[in-house]
């Protein structure tokens, strides 16, 4: 009934709530404030108190979810499947999500120091990792059959993964490309656009002409070009756009001039 997972999360919840209360009183909480979420009296330092308390609430919610859905409860599963004992299955595949999560956390921390963009990026990476990791963990235990589990996971996640991944891929090309064009001169932009397109087209022709080509060569080529475009985009983005000249309309061509304004801010 009470699985290890539940015990862990419930313990965590109690610990967090207790420390929130202690922290609340320690930083100047009054009356019963820290115990009653500030109903009567202050809670001390709002940020710390809120974070600890929120963590506690989330952990307790998770612990109840675990009980309610009897997740990872071998006896429940055995009962459900109508077998005496669950045969432990090996994890289907290795998981990269812990790495992504750690990476995301690192980026996020860096972002705290450097720029909010990185921080948001880190948060997004962590959230994606959390969702995917959870789904993997859930699917790994869904049935006793590894391939069926993988299919189940795909059934739930593929509708979101495919479009998001496709969008991100294209967004990288679009963003990197447009940064490069904006960084270059007017004629340079034309040149860059042509070059990138020719590179893509060229790789396609090369591959189509020799489909039996060594896969590593192809992968290397694609990777190199992709990285080059992304790197170019980052460099160009950091370097900034070229200087644009505000176009001054030649007044009398366009009739009524009284509305001409210099300010085009939106």
């Amino acid at each position: 009934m009470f699985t290890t997972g539940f015990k862990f999360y419930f313990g965590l919840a109690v610990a967090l709530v207790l420390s929130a209360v202690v922290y609340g009183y320690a930083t100047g909480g009054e009356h019963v404030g820290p115990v009653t979420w500030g109903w009567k009296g202050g809670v001390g330092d709002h940020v710390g108190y809120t974070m600890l308390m929120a963590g506690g609430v989330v952990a307790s919610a998770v612990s109840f979810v675990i009980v309610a859905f009897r997740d990872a409860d071998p006896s429940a599963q055995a009962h459900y499947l109508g077998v005496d004992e669950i045969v432990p299955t090996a994890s289907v595949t290795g998981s990269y999500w812990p790495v992504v999560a750690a990476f995301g956390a690192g980026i996020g921390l860096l972002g705290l120091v450097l720029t909010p963009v990185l921080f948001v990026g880190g948060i997004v990476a962590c959230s994606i990792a959390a969702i995917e990791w959870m789904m993997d963990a859930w699917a790994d235990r869904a049935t006793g059959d590894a391939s069926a589990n993988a299919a189940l996971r795909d059934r739930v996640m593929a509708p979101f993964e495919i479009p998001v991944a496709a969008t991100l891929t294209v967004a990288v090309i679009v963003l990197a490309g447009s940064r490069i064009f904006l960084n270059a001169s007017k004629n340079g932009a034309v040149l860059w656009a042509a070059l990138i397109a020719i590179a893509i087209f060229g790789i396609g022709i090369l591959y189509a002409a020799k489909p039996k080509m060594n896969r590593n060569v192809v992968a290397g080529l694609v990777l190199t070009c992709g990285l080059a475009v992304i790197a170019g985009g980052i460099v160009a983005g950091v370097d900034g756009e070229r200087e644009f000249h505000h176009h001054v309309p030649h007044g009398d061509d366009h009739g009524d001039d009284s509305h001409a304004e210099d300010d085009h801010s939106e």
Partner: protein
Amino acid sequence: MSTATATADTHHDHDSHATNTGISNNKLAMWLFLSTECLLFGALISTYLLYKTRGNGDVLPTDIFDIPFTSVSSFVLLMSSLTMVLALSAVTRGEMDRGKAWLLVTAMLGGVFIGGQVYEFTSFYREGLGYTTNPAASAFYTLTGFHGVHVSLGILMLMSLWVAAQQGKLTQKNTETVEIVGLYWHFVDIVWIFIFTVIYLIPPA
């Protein structure tokens, strides 16, 4: 007894699945959809044509068109039609590797086109042509933006096909799926053929 008869009937039903027109439902639906899209783009193009000189004293799109750049991106889109048809041709023959490669190339060329559009919009904005500057600007951005949205959706579909092929779920027997996405892609291209001439190349009188 009745079950047996009915089963025979269902077989009959399935045999007659060769549609009345001889064209699959999906393909016919796509063509009908593309026909209706003519009316959609027609309305946007006429709106722009009507408003293209309504500058209200401000800069007009025609004042700042960057024809060399747009020529390149038009070229890119045109050639992506070639790669699309090559992808279809490869899938038809069952050469999935080659088909996948061309699908990816098509999507990437589409990406370059959209990147070019982002560049174009940004540079126009910096040069004083905002979305709300005047009717000409609103109409120009709406028209080309709409086309851009269509291209982007096309890229999404191409990428999805590529992923499906990568996972082995798209095979030679799904040729028609590739063909239908291809139809959409070519349509977006011919709309741009029209836009490139009528909007960009014809200079103001």
